[in-house]
Every structure is written in C-alpha cells, then in structure tokens.
C-alpha cells in the first residue's frame, strides 16, 4: 500500500510544536519514508505567535505539501482552530480534551471539527504532568499518541527523541516517559480515522546516503561540498540558519566565517575574498539584497567570483519576515545600476538546493561573476529526504588559469578572448600583477572610459555568461509530463514548481494533455529550451508567488508568446488545487467534467 499522509501540528511559540515536528519527521525518515515538511514560525517572541509543523510522508516521490492534511494535532486551540477545515474527510483531529480555564463558546477545538472529520480528544496536559511532573512535554505526549494511533514503531521515535535531546539527559528522559504515556493512551483509544501507513519503500542506493534535510541545510551542505573557504554575513530571516550552520561547520574544515556589521560589509568582504581567490559567499533575504546591489555591480565590473544565497520573504521593506514569497526575482536578475548581468539560479526543491549550493561556486569561478542562488522561505524551511551521492558532484577548481606570459608581455586580467572569459590570476601570483577597480577599464584593468572600450567590455560581461547555459552536470530547465504537443503547459520556478508538478500530474490523471517545465537558470535565460517547450503548448500557465508576475515578465521578455499568469501573495505556498483549477479552465474543462 502506498503511503501519502500529511500531518500538521499547530501550537503557540513555546509549545514545542516545531520540536515535535522535527522528531516526527526524523522518526519517519529514519523508518524509510520520504518526507517533505514545511514549518511556519511566528515573527513574534515566545508565547504569542503561531507555529505550524506540517509534513507530508510518502512512499512515492512527492513534490509539494497537500492542500488538506490527514491529521491535525492541536497544541493550542486558539491557533489550531482556523486550520480545522484543512483536515480531509475521515481525517483525524487530535486535541486537548479539557481546559484549565473557562472557555467562551467556540473556544474549544471540538466546536470546529466538521461532521466528516474524526475527533480524538486526549488529556495531553494531564498525561504530560503525570508522566513527567510538568506540562512541558505535551508535544511529546502527542507524538506518543500519534505513534500509538497510527501503529508506528516506538523505536524510531525513541531514537529521534534521544537525538533531539542528546545534550539534555533530563529532557530525554522526560521525553521517553511522555512518549510512552501518549502511546499507552492511544492503546485504549478506538481508531476511527482511515489514516493508514503502508510499509516504507527502501530508497538506499549503493554508496549514497539518505538524509532528511531542510533547504537551507542543503545549501550549506552544497557549499561545504564545493569547498567554500570564507563566508561573511548578517543574520536575516529566513536565511539566518545558513550562516548559523556554516558557523558550526566551517571551522571544522579550516574555513572562516565572519558576522559583519551589515549586508554591505558582508558583500564587500565576499567580493574582496573572491578577488583574493577564495570561494566566498554570503546569505541574505530581500532587504539585504537591496543593500548589496551596489557592491554586486562591483563584482560584475571587476569580474569577481562571488556567491550570494538569497531566501525571499514577503516584501517590500521589512514586509512579512516569516511568510514566503517569490518577489525578489526582478531584484536578483536586474537589481542595481548599470548593465550588470549576473548568474541567477533558482532550485525548485531541497535536492536542488544542495546542487545549486555547490554549483554556484563552480559557475562563479568559471564565468568570473557574482552568482545569486534564489530560494524562498518555503524552500529554506522545507525538509525533504534527499539522496546524497557518495562523492560530491562539484568541481573543486573551475578557474581559467593564465598561461606563462611571453617575455616582456604584461598580464591582462580582462583580456578580450573568443569566449569572452579571461584567464584569471589570483593576486600575489608571480608576474601576474593587475588592477581591479570599480571603474570601466581596459584589458589590463586600467581606467578607460572610451566608447570602444566600454562597448567591448559590456559585450564581454554579457556574452561570457552564455557559456553558463551549457554549464556541465547542471539542470538548467527540465520538462515533465506529456511529450509532444499539449493543451496546457505549466512553467514555473523555485519552490512553486513542486505544486505545479503535482497539479500537472493530477490534470493528466483527469485526461488533460499537460506538461510542466521548471526553469532553474533564470539569468542568463535559457530561451531556446523554453521556446521549444512553449511551442508545444496551446496554453501556457505561469504560477508564482508574487503580485507582478515577475517570472512571467522575464519569460515574456525572452519569448514573445502570451501566457496566463497565476499569482498569489498570501504568504503561503501556492495551492495545488488553484493551479489545477486553472489548468482545467485553460484546457476548456467544464465544471461538470471536472466533477465527473
């Protein structure tokens, strides 16, 4: 039996909601299931905001979270109640049976459980207090209850609990006791919902390792596997955990990390380190990227390899720090003054974060330019099971080195070559002395603002990037679904592509000829591949999480064809159902057909 179950745990900051999610997905991934998960944190301090740990557990590969959950666990009814209608028919709602305070009408979860859903009141607080002497382990009690109800092996959870509290013996002990209390209570509860786990399917490939990892953690892993030397950064949600993880990992590998005073300092240091020959990076979000715009231009004109990981959130300005959005694409591709082309790549899933996280360094070095890896909060915080190859799939050195200089010749850092890429010397190399400034320059790097030179250098800076469209072992774009002509083609980018893929698969299941294309390389734009795809499509749908249709704008600037835009700015991931409805509409499906 194939497993496809989505569990949402909703609580208040301080309830241990996210920790419960972490343990649950760790246990399930450890059992061999594929897991995609996405946590939502509040922007506020402890004790106020809503936390959601949401995960989809499957045996077949899934690409996004589902619109409806199979199980909702409430650790705090005031936050969970608005999510009650997200539970499917015959799905389970698990909630605190009693309250210690007087509630107004409707203040209890039982008031909001629909007639098709199955209620499971559990004395969560009481079980926690009885088993541990405190109510702090309520989150673990519900995990025990879940494990008991859904007949999941306790060992996998015990391992995950032990791992979570490995440095806190008392918490680990309390966790064990609370888990057992929840599990014992479930043993006395008659199971009514139809949420069933089938056996996991083994995905172990010889030599590979399977890990449950978040998008940000995958970026870090990619950067480390590609041999990052230095990192400079300033914390900002949702990118902070990239820096935090690197701060732990880099010193172990001889790398260096510095928290700078702001984003301008961070990008300046990255460009400096890149100039000095290091594989250097920073991470930020939209507001930080704005601050970095000027210095990115310096990286472009100086042709300095530098990597910027950008995790988008709701904007503009401080906007919605804990909500997801894909609205920094214009900024990433076009942001800044002057003609400042750069490479922008946008992975569509966690595995892609790993690959882009490493490939960014290869590309920055090979094409001597800033590279922006554009993700968003949804992808940063999303966990997926990823299969890591036995050897990192990244080249350690893609720099085009200068040959031996002819006697009396001068090293030209910006030599005009056939493919527009100049041999790059690292400062300090004997005989290859050169100058890099923010001024327009000649081949030697000396200031020169003649019309000819600016034209030649502008061409060089743009044309050299075309080679990135053939960068080896990299998926620039990819088509899925029906081959040949189709009624509807869905093109998307970044985190939204998972939802597009799910919608496309469902549409095909309804008999609609449909295909989907993900575009990972956003700049330079893979015009040929995308044009070929669009030629096959009667209708093209472009779903994305921004108001303007930033990717659609980019697409239409490169391929002159009409598209249908589907834009959402709810701060939440796109809904598969919304995309599917639009596919149906474009395919000319009537409501009756849809229902049938």
């Amino acid at each position, binding site marked *: 039996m194939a497993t496809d179950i989505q569990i949402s745990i909703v609580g208040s900051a301080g309830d241990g909601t996210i920790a419960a999610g972490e343990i649950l997905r760790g246990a399930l991934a450890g059992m061999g299931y594929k897991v995609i998960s996405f946590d939502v944190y509040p922007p506020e301090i402890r004790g106020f905001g809503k936390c959601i740990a949401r995960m989809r557990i499957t045996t077949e590969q899934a690409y996004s979270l589902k619109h409806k959950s199979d199980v909702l666990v409430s650790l705090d009814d005031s936050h969970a109640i608005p999510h009650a209608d997200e539970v499917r*028919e*015959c799905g389970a709602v698990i909630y605190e*049976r*009693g*309250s*210690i*305070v*007087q*509630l*107004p*009408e*409707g*203040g*209890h979860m*039982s*008031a909001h*459980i*629909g*007639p*098709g859903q*199955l*209620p*499971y*009141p559990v004395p969560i607080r009481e079980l926690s207090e009885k088993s541990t002497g405190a109510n702090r382990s309520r989150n673990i009690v519900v995990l025990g209850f879940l494990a008991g109800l859904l007949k999941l092996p306790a060992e996998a959870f015990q391992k995950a609990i032990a791992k979570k509290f490995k440095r806190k013996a008392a918490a680990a002990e309390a966790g064990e006791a609370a888990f057992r209390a929840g599990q014992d209570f479930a043993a006395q509860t*008659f199971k*009514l919902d139809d949420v069933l786990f089938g056996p996991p399917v083994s995905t172990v490939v010889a030599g590979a390792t399977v890990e449950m990892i978040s998008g940000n953690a995958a970026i870090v892993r990619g950067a480390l596997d590609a041999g990052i030397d230095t990192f400079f950064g300033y914390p900002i949600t949702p990118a902070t955990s990239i820096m935090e993880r690197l701060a732990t990992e880099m010193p172990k590998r001889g790398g260096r990390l510095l928290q700078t005073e702001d984003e301008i300092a961070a990008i300046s240091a990255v460009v400096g380190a890149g100039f000095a020959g290091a594989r250097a990076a920073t991470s930020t979000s939209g507001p930080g990227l704005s601050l970095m715009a000027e210095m990115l231009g310096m990286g472009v004109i100086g042709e300095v390899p530098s990597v910027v990981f950008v995790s988008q959130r709701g904007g503009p300005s401080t906007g919605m720090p804990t909500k997801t959005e894909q609205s920094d694409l214009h900024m990433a591709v076009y942001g800044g003054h002057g003609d400042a082309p750069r490479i922008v790549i946008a992975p569509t899933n966690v595995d892609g974060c790993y690959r882009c996280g490493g490939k960014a360094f290869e590309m920055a070095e090979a094409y001597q330019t800033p590279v922006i890896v554009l993700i968003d909060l949804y992808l940063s915080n999303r966990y997926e099971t990823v299969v890591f190859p036995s050897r990192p799939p990244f080249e350690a050195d893609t720099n085009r080195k200068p040959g031996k200089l002819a006697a009396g010749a001068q090293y030209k850092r910006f030599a005009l070559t056939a493919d527009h890429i100049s041999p790059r010397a690292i400062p300090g190399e004997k005989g290859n002395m050169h100058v890099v400034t923010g001024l327009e320059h000649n081949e030697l790097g000396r200031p020169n603002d003649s019309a000819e030179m600016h034209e030649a250098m502008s061409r060089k800076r743009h044309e050299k990037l075309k080679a990135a469209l053939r960068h080896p072992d990299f998926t620039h774009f990819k088509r899925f679904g029906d081959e040949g002509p189709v009624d509807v083609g869905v093109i998307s980018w970044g985190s939204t592509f998972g939802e597009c893929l799910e919608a496309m698969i469902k549409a095909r299941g309804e008999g609609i000829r449909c295909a989907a294309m993900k575009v990972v390389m956003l700049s330079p734009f893979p015009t040929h591949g995308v044009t070929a795809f669009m030629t096959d499509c009667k209708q093209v749908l472009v779903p994305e999480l921004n108001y303007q249709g930033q990717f659609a704008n980019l697409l239409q600037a490169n391929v002159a064809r009409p598209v249908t835009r589907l834009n959402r700015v709810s701060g939440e991931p796109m809904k598969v159902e919304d995309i599917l409805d639009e596919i149906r509409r474009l395919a000319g499906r009537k409501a009756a057909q849809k229902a049938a």
Partner: protein
Amino acid sequence: MATAKNVRHHVVIGSGVAGSQAAETLRECEPDARVTILTLSSLLFYNRYDLPKVFRGHRDWREFLAYPAEYYRERRIGMRRCSRVAGVDAKRRAILLDHKEEIRFDTLLVASGGRGYVPEELSEFRPLMHPFSSYTEAMVAANEVPDRGHVIMLGGDMIGLDLARTLLDTRHRVTLVAGPQTFWPHEVGADERPGLVAALEKMGIEVVEGADAGGIASIEKGARGLSSRRVLFKDGTELYGDVVMPFFGLVPSVEFMLGSGVDIERGLLVNPALRTTNEGIYAAGDVCQIWSDAERRYRFYYGWKNVRAMGDLAARNIAGGADPWVPAQDETLHVTADGNIQSPFWEYE
C-alpha cells in the same frame, strides 16, 4: 460562533434517535434557527439496533452511519461530538461542557438516552464485562469473541436478546444467565415467563434460570482452554465463556441535569407535550418519563419508533406546537404459534 442576535439557538443534548430526529425536525420547522447537537459520541448518528451486524462481518463504522456528513452540512446542523455536558443552568440558559466551554441556548432538548444498568453487586466486575451500547464497544466485543465463541449474557434485556439472535445465526454459543431484567423493557408476568423462556431455548439460547445477578459470586479473567472468563455462582456452579456481556436494561442519563432546576424522578419528568418543568427545556427518548393521563403517573416509553416519534414531537413543540404524546408502537411481547418470540421492540425500519 457569531450568530445574529435575533436567531434562536436550539441546543439538543444527544445524537441518538431522539436527538437526531429532533434536530432534523427543528431545521424543517425553523429554517433560520441555529441548531446544535452536543453529544458524547465520536461518530455521527447511527442506529444502535444495527450494532449486532459487527458479528456478521460489518466492521467499518461508515457502514453504520444513518446519514453522511453532507446531511449535517446541508441542513446546517452543528454537530459537537466528544462533548460531554457537565451541567445545565436553566435560569441563565447556559450549558457547561466538561471541557469548560459554556454554550448559551434559547431552547434545550435533552435526549441523552440511557446507559446500560449493572446491578450494584456486579459493578466491581465491570472491567471484566463487555458492554454493547456503542459502535466502539460492539467492535471491542466482536474482536474478543472468536469464531464460534461462547458469549455469556447476563440479564437478557430485549437489546441483548436481539444480539443473541445474531450470535446464534453466526454460529456462536449463547448462554443466558436469566434474571428479573430478562425481556426488559417488557413487563412479563410470572405465568408468561416459562413460555417465553422455552421460546428462547427453542432459538438455541442456553438459559440458566434462577441464577440471576444476585446469584453470581464473581467473574474472573483467565480460564481454561480458549475461554477467558469464568462466572462463578454462589451455589458453587460455574460457567466458562469468551466474554461476559451485561444486558440489564437502561438507566436514564440525567446526572448533568441535577441542580438544573427541572424535576427528575428516574428520568426527566415531562408533560404530554414533552416539556420539562422548565419552560424552554424539553426532553425526549429514553431519558424522559412522560405524564400519562390514563395511568395517572409518569412512565417511560421504550422502543425505537417511540423514541423517534418523541424527538419529532418535542421539536415541533419547541417550534411553537402544543401536540400531546401518542405512543407510536405497542408494548406487548408475544410467542407466535410456531414458538417464536415476537416483540415490537425488534421492529424497526
């Protein structure tokens, strides 16, 4: 839970036959009113006379539901499951749920039915018995009884005897430890009893007469062979079975109404219009005792058809009617010419 101030809120306690019928009638009579059912049950309404089907292999709860979820959505009947009423404040028109939520009502219909009665002297053995009054209990019992297993039935009310028919039909063995509650709710005269017991034996039930609940010394767990229960009688005799099921009739579920201000004897006392002693609070079903002008006493009317008719009548009266109660089924127990038992209690749609 925002509702317009002038919309009446009708609350029904209980999602059995009476409560469910009442909610449907209330919705028909008052399309704009708010109708909410509060119930202990975790499932939507099902007919409990269907429960013996678990022994015929029907195990999925969905097969038992009288109506799909859509029925409640379409009729805008609020369904609050797993919600135990802890108390009612008639003056303030407020209900307090066990989990400390307060619900205000304009009118209240109490249809909380009854729960299985177990004689005091046997109550210490409750954990060793398998009641059969809800889907969950039915499933637990069914999972416990092996193929061709042996069920020891204590008491033997009409609910139990109905189950016995199915058990025998599905090749189980049934021993009835008969007593004063055998044939409840029918009142059986001493002269009728031997004929009725003979009819039970003809059905295939092994009847242990005279060894009523008062004669049971203990019930024990773990016994010889496959059997997992031993019933030890005071006279030293013993019985072995897979499960022991109590069927001693029902006691009305009224504890949450104590202190509410309405009159209670064993059940909630209602006038022929099914109104309690408090205006705005009605009762229907197994929980209420209705004033009978003819008999000059408050009395219970059992049986599925009666209970449903009570739910319907109470709702119509809540909506402004003033019709009196007329029983919907007769109450006599017969033995047919060919020796079979015939009870109006066993007639349902």
